[in-house]
């Protein structure tokens, strides 16, 4: 058995002392993907909301893309969690007999609320009029399909469009706290475990939230550029600059909050401090200092910060935006990694460490994680084909 072999290897690599049951690291790469993917959803949605609620017109070209991206990732958001279970086919128990004192039990409900009430409804109202038009233009199955998507509502009157816009606006307003709830809540799953000093922090939900925004915004920025590249269209540079500006501000906030959490830990230096210090300087050195802070935070901050004062040519900016958004996405992935894996590398006895090696070839977790990360892009491609934002009628204000 491969898994047991890995455990023996981990056992051979134990440093210091670790409770015997802790050698097996129970939350693997899939649980890293879980907050990562939900974060992308929340972040992408919040970018869409910035456009809608705060009426930031420059962001308009990414509005539908953000929503569809959020939906694509939302559709698989539970999969890493479910496929990680020891008994995946019992996952529905969480929905039908939730145990209310458990943070995890509520996830299903938060998820359903967000998917059904916020995302699907907002997209539906945004596209309703266009779907009616498309259903009239198409023939055969597609005609039927669009009709079905409109739920056989075929009102095209200007009043109906105004109503759509009003309701859409209202949903966005509800959506923002919902997105906050969704991801803040994921942070709470970790932050509320007093057994684990690396996780247990009131800051956790807030940090998760801001890092989610950062990653979602970076993702939309990246996808927007890729879509334009594929469609051979010019990027709207004003839009990119505006996204970059928001990315910059939120990244500063995120970095400040995370630093605050670390400074607090360092200054307070409670009983867990020594082991956590060893952890961060040892096992997490690469993923924490190099990837999360260096690649994912300092580098993007430096580039974006520089752009706020001095703007190089459009071409250079575009290339750097592509690089920066990827760097942020990588950085946030490692932030999740440092939380989830890092929290299990040290012993709760505070006397030692275990190790975790990603088994690139035989690891089920690696393949599944990749799968759950790639599928959303296919879903997005399908959604963009079905509901192309560039073929939409002009927006009507409610």
């Amino acid at each position, binding site marked *: 058995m491969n898994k047991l072999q890995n455990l023996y290897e981990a*056992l051979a690599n134990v440093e210091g002392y670790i409770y*015997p049951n802790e*050698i097996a690291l129970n939350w693997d790469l899939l649980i890293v993907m879980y907050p990562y993917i939900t974060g992308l959803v929340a972040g992408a949605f919040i970018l869409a909301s910035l456009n809608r609620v705060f009426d930031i017109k420059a962001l308009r070209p990414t509005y539908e893309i953000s929503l569809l991206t959020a939906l694509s990732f939302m559709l698989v958001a539970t999969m890493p969690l479910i496929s990680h279970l*020891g008994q995946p086919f019992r996952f529905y128990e969480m929905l*039908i*007999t939730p145990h209310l004192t458990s943070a*995890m039990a509520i996830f299903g409900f938060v998820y359903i609320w967000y998917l059904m009430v916020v995302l699907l409804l907002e997209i539906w109202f945004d596209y309703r009029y266009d779907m009616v038009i498309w259903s009239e233009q198409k023939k055969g199955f597609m005609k039927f399909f669009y009709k079905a998507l409109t739920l056989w509502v075929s009102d095209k009157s200007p009043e109906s469009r105004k109503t759509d816009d009003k309701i859409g606006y209202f949903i966005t307003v509800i959506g923002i706290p919902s997105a906050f*709830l969704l991801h803040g809540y994921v942070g709470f799953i970790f932050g509320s475990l007093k*057994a684990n000093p690396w996780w247990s922090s009131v800051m956790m939900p807030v940090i998760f939230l801001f890092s989610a925004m950062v990653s979602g915004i970076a993702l939309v920025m990246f996808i927007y550029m890729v879509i334009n590249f594929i469609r051979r269209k010019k990027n709207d540079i004003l839009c990119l600059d505006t996204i970059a500006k928001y990315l910059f501000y939120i990244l500063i906030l995120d970095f400040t909050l995370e630093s605050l959490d670390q400074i607090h830990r360092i200054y307070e230096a409670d009983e867990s401090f020594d082991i956590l210090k060893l952890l961060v300087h040892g096992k997490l050195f690469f993923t924490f200092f190099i990837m999360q802070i260096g690649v994912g935070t300092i580098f993007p901050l430096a580039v974006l910060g520089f752009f706020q004062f001095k703007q190089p040519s459009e071409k250079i900016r575009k290339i750097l935006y592509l690089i920066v958004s990827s760097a942020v996405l990588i950085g946030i992935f490692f932030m999740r990694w440092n939380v989830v894996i890092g929290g299990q590398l040290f012993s709760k006895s505070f006397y030692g460490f275990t190790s975790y090696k990603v088994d690139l070839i035989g690891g089920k977790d690696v393949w599944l994680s990749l799968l759950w990360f790639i599928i959303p892009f296919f879903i997005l491609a399908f959604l963009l084909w079905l509901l192309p934002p560039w073929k939409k009628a002009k927006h009507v204000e409610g």
Partner: protein
Amino acid sequence: MAIKKENVSRRDFLKKSSMFAGGVVFVSLLNPFKVVYATKKPKGKGKWYGIAIDIEKCIGCGSCARACKTENNVPNEPFFFRNWVEQYTITNDEQVMVSSPNGGIDGFKQAVPDEDIYKTFFVPKMCNHCAKSPCTQVCPVGASFESPEGLALVDQNYCIGCGYCVQACPYGCRYIDPAKGVVDKCTLCYHRLQKDLDPACMMACPTGARIYGDLNDRDSAVSLFIKEYNCAVLKPQLNTDSKLYYYALSQEVH
């Protein structure tokens, strides 16, 4: 014998799903300060189990850990334990060394030369059957629960194997059974208790270092022991209300 949680019935499905539809978040918002622990100490006559371990008596023979593995079909590999023994060695230059090779089942070797040792002792570990157990608090389906006797148990036919409880236990007392995909832990040999038999570890201990019994009964062996000796629990700062009392516990032990 499989452990079955009594108070969750799937027949509740319809009732619950209609009740929860759209309402759970709302309800939990209305009720955020509801005390979240699973069980209260029963008033009246019910049993309320506690355990005491006399560290001075433990000779590190590992019989308890061995007996537990056999009695409870715990997987043989050295990563799965309901019960294990740790050896602490504190050197003259104040280094603390801890080890538990194969949970102490095969006995211990002392790697530090005698003249460098300040003190050394053994600490048997097992589930503390916390009265405010963080593990049962976090279980998303309620498969981990506290029995009315104050034992933290798992209904393995119900557990979804999410591992949340494993993360929530501050003492490392839970593991995921690799063959079953569900969590497993010490039950204080619940199946034996129900037949008025002693837990396997208690029977196996040759020195009588392990005591268990009803904390509600002031004359039980465990109550008398705690009264006589000044005991401490592990990680009291976490407020788990552990019911595993150690006598002669050094502060180096976490």
